[in-house]
């Protein structure tokens, strides 16, 4: 490829619309006759529902309908399992208890819907919520992961013998033997607490059923338009062709918008069909915290067995994963943890066991990082703990155990979220760590800067960690590329976009292959009426998998162009070139044609065509990798802790990342920087706090704190290495979660380093000044 466009920091074509307020988001949709929905949600986290009296609500002017579970009769059933169970893993136990659309006999989390009000406005619908009288018998609540598995714990699902949702054990080698031979075994308990996706746009759905056309159009701010379309069609007994899901611009995804079995996904299409009027539901921020899925909240009991020289012999990690009240998303998050615990290191013996637990909290499904963060946290913290005991420096111990460039592909023996063995495809792991060390000037900091500031009474510390990021998983995505008779190129793919720049990135790929100006490429994402095969935007796979499909389809179109032009100009394909939107014969300037004209010639409206004829310059292609590509990198930061207030400030920040081939460096950096914001949030600000009654204490931005501009380091210095992935023709690896994954482990290492005299062992995140105070007080007692 000539690489004129691919690899360039091309400005995004979607920006002018977004910048001028002309981009369509879900709540911008206004259809004549549209009604508005609101959910009455349970305050109790666990209770039996005795009765729900909606009669007063029905009397309120402006209320069109009020529904409870009994109104849905045969439609009422637990939703589908969105991700298959881990039956590929021997011995896996999985109890599927999927989301129910609206509470019938029992509520299992605070925020679970009890009734659905449809009214002329959202204001009136909310008024009607207060009219509904619910009679509930509260039940004992279970929120603690370990207590939930004790005998006699209240059962979230009465038909199960316990709150065990799943149990998966995986092993590489034999940990017990390795530990027996070890000079040192580090055992620690670690915890990362729950955080929200926190997209600036809340979820929403608009459903429009056309009774005359017998077809349904759904606008949804979803990361999975095709699975959503399929499940709605199936549920309503409609053909896929009768249901179209269109994603407008989406104000951030980050994971929770991958769900397709949320109460609104299930109930609004049913209701729209009954009422024969369009219905809109837009979540508010309180609901987003309370009743949209979130993630994190895993408790780890981990062990690292090493020689006294610091060589790792084995790793063991037994952990509890809080799935909340239901487990509609299978084992994705904990499986990601299992495949990421060994991280960047060559660990011959690894035992990992997850006990997934039902509790009376909101359901957990992936949020940026999606389980990888804890795997990395466990590994990096154990490394640091071992380093302290052995008197080794953090970089030394990491390099000693790191996977070397000549070890790829490395089969880990651990099955991941795509149900195949996690194989590390390529990379240069030592190189990213060394580069991060150079960029942050680690040695200078330790030898000169830190001692000097320490003498002045300051507490500054440095952290440096290594991480892997599983990306680009299957199963597949597809794309259709076509050149129309006007010479414009259209690209369609099934995945949707939440700000990652797909419109531009996919256009770059197509433009490069077809030799057209990027302005002449129009990308459509997330409209099942235009492209109806695919899985969704998750696991940092958009550019990798859908991008590869776009590339494949573009190459097929390129081939067609050359075939058609070759016949026309009577030259062989290697004598022609595609550039400036034309096909040109290299040695004969008189023989050239615009792609538009060629397209017209390739789809005649009169005459005869050959037997194997396919009209147009169009091709559809699918791409599925054999397994996901693994990005990798290293992060380093310098923090300063105010010795009095114990407030922590990040003074320097470096992240080196290897995501293989880069399509658009500007978009890549944006993705990494954005992930860092969430990583810093998970380290120091963000914590969804439930009390012992299962009540979420901070369901608003006033009390759930997300990093603002002044909470971020003044400059995020990004470095890049590129080891192209052999798993797709473009050599791409995903990068969407890179900023979030390593940050908590790097942050705490740096904070510990700021108090060398206290010898801290910080094994829980997030931190806060108050938490630091507790930590410092506790450690002073030990000295």
């Amino acid at each position, binding site marked *: 490829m000539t690489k004129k466009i691919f690899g360039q920091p091309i400005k995004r074509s979607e920006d002018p619309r977004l910048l001028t307020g002309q981009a369509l988001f879900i709540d911008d949709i206004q259809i004549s006759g549209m009604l508005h929905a609101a959910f009455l949600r349970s305050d109790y986290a666990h209770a039996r529902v005795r009765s729900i009296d909606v009669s007063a609500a029905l009397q309120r002017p402006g209320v069109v309908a009020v529904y409870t579970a009994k109104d849905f009769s045969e439609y009422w059933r637990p939703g589908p399992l969105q991700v298959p169970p881990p039956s590929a893993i021997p011995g896996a136990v999985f109890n599927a208890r999927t989301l129910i659309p609206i509470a019938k006999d029992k509520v299992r989390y605070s925020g679970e819907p009890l009734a659905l009000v449809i009214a002329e406005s959202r204001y009136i619908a909310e008024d009607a919520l207060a009219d509904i009288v619910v009679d509930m018998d509260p039940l004992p609540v279970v929120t603690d992961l370990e207590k939930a598995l004790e005998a006699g714990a209240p059962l979230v699902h009465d038909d199960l013998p316990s709150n065990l949702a799943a149990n998966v054990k995986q092993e590489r080698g034999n940990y017990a033997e390795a530990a027996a031979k070890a000079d040192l075994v580090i055992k620690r308990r670690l915890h990362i607490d729950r955080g929200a996706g926190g997209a600036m746009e809340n979820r929403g759905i608009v459903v429009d059923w056309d009774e005359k056309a017998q077809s349904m159009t759904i606008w949804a701010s979803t990361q999975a338009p095709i699975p959503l379309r399929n499940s709605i069609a199936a549920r309503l007994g409609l053909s896929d062709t009768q249901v179209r899901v269109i994603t407008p611009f989406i104000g951030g995804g980050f994971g929770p918008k991958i769900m397709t079995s949320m109460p609104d996904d299930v109930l609004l299409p049913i209701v729209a069909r009954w009422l024969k009027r369009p219905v809109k539901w837009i979540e508010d921020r309180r609901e987003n915290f309370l009743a949209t899925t979130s993630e994190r909240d895993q408790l780890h009991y981990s062990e690292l067995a090493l020689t006294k020289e610091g060589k790792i012999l084995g790793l063991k990690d037994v952990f509890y994963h809080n799935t909340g009240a239901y487990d509609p998303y299978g084992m994705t998050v904990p499986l990601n943890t299992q495949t990421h615990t060994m991280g960047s290191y060559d660990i011959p013996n690894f035992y990992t066991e997850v006990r997934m637990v039902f509790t009376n909290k909101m359901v957990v499904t992936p949020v940026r990082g999606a389980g990888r963060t804890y795997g990395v946290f466990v590994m990096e913290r154990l490394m640091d703990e071992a380093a302290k005991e052995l008197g080794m420096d953090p970089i030394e111990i990491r390099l000693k155990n790191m996977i070397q460039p000549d070890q790829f592909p490395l089969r880990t023996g651990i099955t991941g979220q795509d149900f195949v063995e996690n194989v590390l495809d390529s990379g240069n792991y030592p190189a990213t760590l060394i580069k991060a060390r150079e960029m942050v000037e680690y040695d200078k900091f330790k030898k000169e800067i830190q001692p000097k500031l320490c003498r002045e009474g300051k507490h500054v510390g440095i952290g440096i960690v290594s991480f892997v990021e599983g990306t680009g998983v299957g199963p597949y995505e597809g794309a259709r590329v076509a050149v129309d008779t006007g010479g414009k190129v259209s690209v369609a793919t099934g995945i949707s976009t939440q700000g990652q720049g797909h419109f531009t990135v996919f256009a770059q790929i197509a433009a490069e292959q077809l030799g057209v100006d990027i302005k002449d490429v129009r990308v459509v994402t997330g409209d099942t009426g235009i492209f109806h095969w695919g899985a969704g935007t998750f696991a940092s796979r958009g550019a990798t998998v859908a991008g590869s499909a776009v590339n494949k389809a573009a190459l097929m179109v390129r081939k067609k162009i050359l075939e058609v032009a070759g016949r026309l100009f009577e030259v062989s394909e290697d004598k022609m070139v595609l550039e400036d939107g034309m096909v040109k014969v290299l040695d004969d300037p008189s023989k050239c044609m615009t792609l538009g004209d060629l397209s017209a010639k390739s789809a005649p409206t009169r005459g005869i065509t050959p037997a194997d004829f396919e009209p147009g310059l169009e091709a559809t292609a699918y791409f599925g990798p054999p397994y996901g590509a693994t990005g990798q990198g290293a992060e380093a930061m310098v923090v300063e802790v105010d010795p009095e207030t114990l407030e922590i400030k990040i003074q320097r920040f470096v992240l080196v990342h290897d995501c293989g081939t880069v399509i658009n460096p500007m978009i890549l950096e944006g993705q990494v920087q954005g992930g860092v914001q969430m990583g810093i949030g998970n380290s120091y600000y963000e914590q969804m706090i439930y009390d012992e009654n299962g009540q979420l204490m901070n369901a608003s931005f006033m*009390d759930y*704190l997300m990093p603002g501009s002044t909470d971020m380091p003044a400059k995020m210095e990004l470095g890049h290495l590129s080891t192209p992935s052999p798993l797709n023709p473009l050599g791409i690896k995903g990068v969407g979660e890179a900023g979030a994954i390593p940050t908590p482990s790097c942050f705490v290492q740096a904070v510990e380093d700021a108090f060398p005299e206290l010898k801290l062992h910080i094994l829980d995140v997030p931190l806060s000044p108050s938490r630091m105070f507790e930590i410092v007080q506790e450690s002073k007692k030990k000295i």
Partner: protein
Amino acid sequence: MKPAPFDYYAPSSITEALDRLAELGYDGKVLAGGQSLIPAMNFRMAQPAALVDLNGIKELDYIRSAPDGGLLIGTMTRDSKVEHDATVAQRAPIVLEAMPHIAHPQIRNRGTFGGAMAHADPAGQLPGLAVALNARFLVKSKTNEYWTAADDFFVGPFGTVIQPDEMLVEVALPALPQRSGTCYRQVSRQKGSQALVGVAVFVVLDEKGKCQSANISMLCVGERPLLAREAAKVLVGQLPVAEAIHAAADIAATKEIDPGSDIHATEEYRRYIAAVLVQRALTEAFKRAQSRGG
């Protein structure tokens, strides 16, 4: 999150507003900047039957120099106007010190000086300052008007002496005497987020440079801004040296406040940080008092 319905009144004069409040009694609620009330209404935690909107009353929007050298600020003066006013900078610099901590500029463009006082958030910076400065509040009703001292004005969490048919019309900040110093310090999780603890101090030195008075006002440590009177006693009559300041800070933090634990900080941290902030604020305020000497 949409608010519940309410009847709406938009008087254009103080008299009209007071008439309306007299009429509405317990049903009526004053709407000033709305930056605290409207979020509560959007959450439906507040559902007033009627709102009396003061935003159209121009006669409540003023910053005047008081003859005694202090300031008179009308209730509906926007926080941002106060923040950028040259006379306020001169006569009540502590207000400018606290303002950048109060939410964000977009909130301060709408929020009002008097509204914050009447709202009486125990975590509010402006009530805390008012108590430190011995501010006075002018409250009016249709038939009555009276002045009250800040320390008497605030009665509890989100509670003041204001009755349903009354409203706050003016805040008077006294003149800062010679050899006085003020200082505001706080710790919050983020810029603009609620303080974990805030301290506003107002100290005066005598001609010998000894502490004549010390108002140590603290927010987020009780049901309303608290004055640390015992701590002040330790300072009065003493030279403001580090040991005395330290002792005062200690007393304030251990004996005079009642901070709770919440999701953002434990009681222990709040007490600890209260001592740190009182020490920092007093040290700086005394320094300023010394440079303002006569």
